[in-house]
């Protein structure tokens, strides 16, 4: 698991941001984790710490409003929680969500299998590859 993030919370966030990720098998999740690990390898420790804290807040803050942690919410409620963070009036919270969202999107769409799944097939051969 990237950065020793809590696997259940992280996967609940990933499947809320990219609903198709719920269809990933074990190999798919391993690929996603590998992409994120590589992306964050050389990033400052402070950034990784912030991500862990932010993910922890996502897991436990919903208890105040919904009486349940993030992982125990249904998909619609999870979406509402993340949408709230995305639109928060405090810029640092919006930026925090932006960072987490970026990492999740890199992990999912940075995999060659995801590119194939959406029909993206750019090739160094360019026009010749179409023939």
């Amino acid at each position, binding site marked *: 698991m990237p950065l020793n993030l809590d696997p259940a919370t992280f996967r609940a966030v990933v499947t809320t941001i990219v609903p*198709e990720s719920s269809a990933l098998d074990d190999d798919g999740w391993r690929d996603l984790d590998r992409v994120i690990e590589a992306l964050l390898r050389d990033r400052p420790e402070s950034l990784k710490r912030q991500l862990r804290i932010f993910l922890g807040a996502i897991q436990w803050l919903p208890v105040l409003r919904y009486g349940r942690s993030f992982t125990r919410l249904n998909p619609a409620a999870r979406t509402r929680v993340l949408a709230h963070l995305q639109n928060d009036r405090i*810029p640092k919270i919006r930026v925090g969500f932006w960072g987490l969202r970026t990492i999740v999107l890199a992990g999912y769409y940075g995999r060659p299998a995801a590119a194939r799944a959406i029909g993206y097939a*750019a090739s160094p051969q360019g026009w010749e590859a179409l023939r």
Partner: protein
Amino acid sequence: MKRVSYDIVIVGSGAGGGTVAQELSPLCREGLRIAVLEKGPRLRDDEFTGRELEMAGALYEDGGGFLTADGTMTLAFGCAYGGSTVVYTGTSMLPPERVIRRWNVPGLTHADLECRARKFMAENNVHLIEDHLINENNKLFVAGCRKLNYDVQQFPVNIKGCRGSSLCNLGCPNQAKQGTDRVQLPRAEQNGVEVVTRCQVLTIGEKTLAARVTAKPAGAKGDPSPWEPGEYQIDAKIIVLCAGAIHTPALLLRSGMARTLPRIGYGFTSHPAMIMVAEHARPITNFVGHPKSYYLDQFTESDHFVLETCMYFPFITAKSLAGFGAPHSAFMQAFPRLQMILVLACDKADAHNRVAIDGDGRPVVNYRFQPEAIHGLIRGAITSAKIFFAAGAVRVHMPVARNTTIEAGDAARLDEIGASAEFKPGKTPVSAAHMQGGCAMGSGPSGSVTDSQGRVHGLPWLFVADASLFPNSLEINPYVTIMALADRVAQRIRQEVPALV
């Protein structure tokens, strides 16, 4: 610490550094020793695979994820042999006369810049792409603009033997783009200039530089540095800084030069950009063919934006769509049917926006969005949506609307949607290329860092030759203007060599 000496050291190998290296390289035949120090790696031709994260990690600063200090804008710039010319699309524009006039730099004329720019456009094979090589993503932009009576223009590009991979921004896998890595640097090396990759300059002092050469990390792309890893002191009679609009000011600040040059870092600007995406009912040719063939600049003066065709890769596209969940996924699932337009805001230099350094000497870009830039992004987004629908799109992703998916049936309401648009830093996806300013040209140290030929005020051995020289936004793709300015700086250095070397 190892110690080496050169007559001239050039820091950076992009549009500025590559040009200076080429233009000064005939001096090697007269016995002068010239080195280019480049922080990034030099990749072999077969290492350009076009794979998104792999190439971004190899060719961009921070893998393309360098952020402004408050985290609200991503700044994309190259870090490799050839600098950002390795990752641009090769769009080659003459400096606009109105902009150079407004810069009002004593001794700098548009006629001189244009003459030099044309020299490099010829050298880099700049031309208009033949019609049969233009894809539907670009043709639909033209069709939409013409339907709306917009004055669409074709980009001249600097390609040779383009196969239409569409992968320009990941480094051309076919070596078709004529950046400094393909043209100016090889010529400079042929004439005797040494290029030292993986070499980061830490500080500069009176005719000396402190630098660190790093080993090639295990599994990384690129050749090892020609120098052994370690710390170096490099003596040089002339130093030319071409590390770009972020690293050149940061290097001067790390070197303690702000005491006598208080304008270092100020005047930083860029082209804040949003990627607009629309879905058509049928697949179009989009990820094949040169990605950037047309632009629309008729709204530059009135609404502060330029539109350019573009085509990006899965992760960058996903990152550039606002929101998440099902509406976001719906556009990603439609990838072969997507048309894209890049909205570039013409952002003027502002007192707050500047390059600084943190406690460890790393560059920090303090940036806040100016009202004109926000206006430009919103109006650019609305205009893009009109073009998409005029070209037949069935829905448009509108990153600044409350409901980000706009159906064709709502096309008539676009101005109304624009009036209630919401630009929220940290939520609205904005990234920028074309970093400019930070070591502006001018007449004296109270208002600028260098004179009109790039010589740093009060330091006759120190020159700047990159986009940091711009006193304000160029308002177009900048590499040709950087080369023209670098050519002026190189000419000045040649004149100064007898006195300085």
